[in-house]
C-alpha cells in the first residue's frame, strides 16, 4: 500500500490516544479519519481490515463526494467496526442487519451514497436474507463484504464462507459445509455491479469500490482478507504476512482467468479478482420516485383521508 493507516508511533502519548492534528494532515487518506477518535483501532496489528478502510476512503475521495453526503452503515464484527474511525455519517447497527438499516436510510435519503460494511458472517449467515433481498430490489447501496472466512470478532468460529475441511473453533475436525460463493449469490439475486479483489491488491479495491459506489443500483464488492489471529492460528497458516502472500499467490485476475482453457477453469482453485458481473436495471428508490409521480398525476384531487 502507498499509505499507512496508522502507526502507534504517530500517537502523542501525552494526549491519551487521540492523534496529533498534524498526523491527520500527513496524508490525504488520513484526513478522512475522525480527528476526535481515539486510536489505534481495535484491530489486531497486521489485520487486513485496515487495508480495506484505506481503499474505501480513497474510493470515496476519488469520486469527489462530500463527506456529509456519504453514510456508512455497518453490522457487527471486526469488519463492522470500520466506520467508527471514519469521518462520514456512520451507523453501527446489529449483527446481520446493516443492509436492512441501510435500506431505510436510502429510502429516506435517496440522494445520499450509502455503503453497507459487513463481515462474511454478517452478510452471509445472519444477514443472508437481507443480502439477497437488497440485491433483488437493486436498491442503491454498495455492500462491502470483508471475507476473512471466519467469525473474527467472536474468536474464530466457522462462517458460511469457511472453506471445506478447514478448521474453526466450532469445526475442530474440519468444516463439512460447502461455502457460499458471495459474488455468485449477489449476481444471481440481482446485484447490478459485482467485483472482488483482495487486501493484497488495494489499488484494485480502490478502483472497484469507486465503480461500485458510482453504480446507481445494488453493488457488491467482496474484499478477500484473512484473520491470522483466529483462522490462521487454528489452521497453522502462519503470520499476517504469510497469509498476505497466499492472497497474492492464490489469486488470479479475471482477464488471466478468461484466457484459461475450459479444463483449466474447471480445476481452478484460485480466487478470481475483477469485475465479475454488471447489469443495467432500474434502481429501487428511483422506481419508487416514478411511482410517486404517477400517483400524483393520476389523482384528480388530493385525497380526503378516511373516505373508505
Amino acid at each position, binding site marked *: 500500500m502507498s499509505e499507512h493507516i496508522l502507526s502507534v508511533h504517530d500517537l502523542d502519548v501525552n494526549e491519551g490516544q487521540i492523534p496529533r492534528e498534524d498526523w491527520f494532515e500527513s496524508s490525504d487518506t488520513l484526513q478522512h479519519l*475522525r480527528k*476526535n*477518535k*481515539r486510536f489505534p483501532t481495535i484491530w489486531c496489528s497486521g489485520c487486513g481490515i485496515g487495508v480495506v478502510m484505506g481503499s474505501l476512503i480513497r474510493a470515496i475521495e476519488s469520486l469527489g463526494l462530500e*463527506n*456529509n*453526503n456519504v*453514510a456508512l*452503515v455497518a453490522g457487527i464484527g471486526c469488519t463492522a467496526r470500520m*466506520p*467508527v474511525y471514519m*469521518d*462520514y*455519517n*456512520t*451507523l*453501527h*447497527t*446489529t449483527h446481520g*442487519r446493516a443492509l*436492512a*438499516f*441501510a*435500506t*431505510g*436510510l*436510502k*429510502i*429516506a*435519503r435517496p*440522494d*445520499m451514497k450509502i455503503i453497507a460494511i459487513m463481515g462474511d458472517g454478517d452478510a452471509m449467515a445472519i444477514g443472508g*436474507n*437481507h443480502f439477497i*433481498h437488497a440485491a433483488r430490489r437493486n436498491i442503491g447501496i454498495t455492500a462491502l463484504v470483508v471475507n476473512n472466512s471466519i467469525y473474527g470478532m467472536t474468536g474464530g468460529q466457522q462462517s458460511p464462507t469457511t472453506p471445506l475441511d478447514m478448521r474453526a473453533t466450532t469445526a475442530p475436525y474440519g468444516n463439512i459445509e460447502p461455502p457460499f460463493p458471495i459474488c455468485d449469490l449477489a449476481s444471481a439475486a440481482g446485484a447490478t455491479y459485482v467485483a472482488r479483489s483482495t487486501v493484497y491488491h488495494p489499488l484494485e479495491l480502490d478502483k472497484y469500490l469507486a465503480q461500485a459506489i458510482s453504480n446507481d443500483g445494488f453493488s457488491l464488492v467482496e474484499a478477500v482478507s484473512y484473520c491470522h489471529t483466529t483462522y490462521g492460528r487454528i489452521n497453522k497458516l502462519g503470520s499476517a504476512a504469510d497469509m498476505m502472500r497466499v492472497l497474492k499467490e492464490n489469486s488470479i485476475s479475471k482477464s488471466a482467468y478468461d484466457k484459461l482453457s475450459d479444463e483449466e477453469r474447471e480445476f481452478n482453485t484460485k480466487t478470481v479478482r475483477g469485475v465479475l458481473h454488471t447489469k443495467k436495471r432500474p434502481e429501487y428508490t428511483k422506481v*419508487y420516485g416514478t*411511482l*410517486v409521480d404517477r*400517483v*400524483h398525476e393520476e*389523482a384528480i384531487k*388530493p*385525497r*380526503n*383521508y*378516511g*373516505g373508505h
Partner: protein
Amino acid sequence: MTIKLMQGNEAIAMGSLAAGCRFYAGYPITPSTEVAEIMSRELPRVGGKFIQMEDEIASMAAIIGGSVGGLKSMTATSGPGFSLMQENIGYAAMAEIPCVVVNVQRLGPSTGQPTAASQGDVMQARWGTHGDHQIIVLSPISVAQSFELAVKAFNFSEKYRTPVILLTDEIIGHMREPIELPDFDTVEKVERVVTDSPADYKAFRNEPGDVPPMASFGLGYRYHITGLFHDEVGFPTQRLDEIDPWLERVNRKIENNTDDILLYQKDYQPGARTAILSYGATARTARHAMKQLRAKGQKVSLFTAQTLWPFPEKAVEELADSVERIIVPEMNMGQLALEVERMAGRKKVVRVNRANGEMVTPDMILEAAEN
C-alpha cells in the same frame, strides 16, 4: 373536521399520517395488515415512502434507518412479528432513535390464534428486548383513541428520542366506530430542531436537558450511532464515568416527564370500596360492568390506563389508598395486574383473566365485584 366510520387499524394509519409519518416498513401479519395496506396506498400521495420488507427484523431495522435519515417512521405487526423485532427495538432505545411500533395483539404464544384478540404482550412490550431500558407503551380503548394515540406516539418518540409501542388488540383494531377526523394541518406535531453548529453538536450529550436534539443524517452533522455503550459524541466506551451519566440520563428523560407521558382517566365515586382498573378492549367491558354495578347501587371507581409503560405508579397507589380492592380484568393470565399488586400495598387485587381469545365479559367482572 369530518366524521368518518372506520376501523381502529385505519384510525392508526390516519393518526400516523396526521402526525407526519412519512415512512412505513413492515411485513404482513393478521390482525395488523390493514395498517400496512392503508399506508402503502396513502404514503405516496403525501410524498412519503412505503416498503414491504423481507421480515419483521428487517422492518424494524429499516424504520430506524429511515428515522436516522429524517423521516418519521413506523411499522405495524402482531405477536410473532413483535417477537422478531425485539433486538432492534432495543437498538432504538440504546441509540435513542425515534420510531413507532404498532402491535395489534393476537392470541399467543407462537402462531396461537391469528384472528383472536389478546392482551398477552403487555410484559413483552416492556421487557421484550434484552437489557434495562425505558420505553413508552400506549394502548387505545376506541377507534377515536387509536387516532389520538398514534399522534401521541409519534410526538412522544420525537420529544423523548425513544421507540414508542402502540399496543392495541384485535378487537380495537378491527372494530368500526364513527370518529371525528381533524384537519391534519391542525394536529400538533413535534419536529426535530437542532440549533447547535456541527462543530458543537453532541448527539448524546448529558447537559443541558435530558433529551439531546436529534440531527438526521446528511445535514452536515457527521456523527456516529451505535448500539454499544457510547460517550456523548457516540463513540463506543467502556468508561464508567461515561456509561453511568448516560444510564442516568436515559432513565431520567422518561421518569422525570411522567406528567406529560402518563395518560389515564379516573372515574371515581366517593366512598367506593371497589375499583376496576383496565385498558384496551377490556376497558370497554369494565365500563359496562361499572354502569351495571352503579345501577344496582354499588359504589365503584374506574381507572382506565392509556399509558401502560411507564406504569402510572403514583395514580394507582392513590387509587389503592382510597379503596379496599382493585379488580384487574385482562385478556391474559395476569400481566398488568402484577404492577397493580406492586402498588396496592395491603389492599386486595382481584385478577379476572381470560386468555383463550374471547373477551372478558361484564358478568365475569360483576361476579368478582359482588363476591
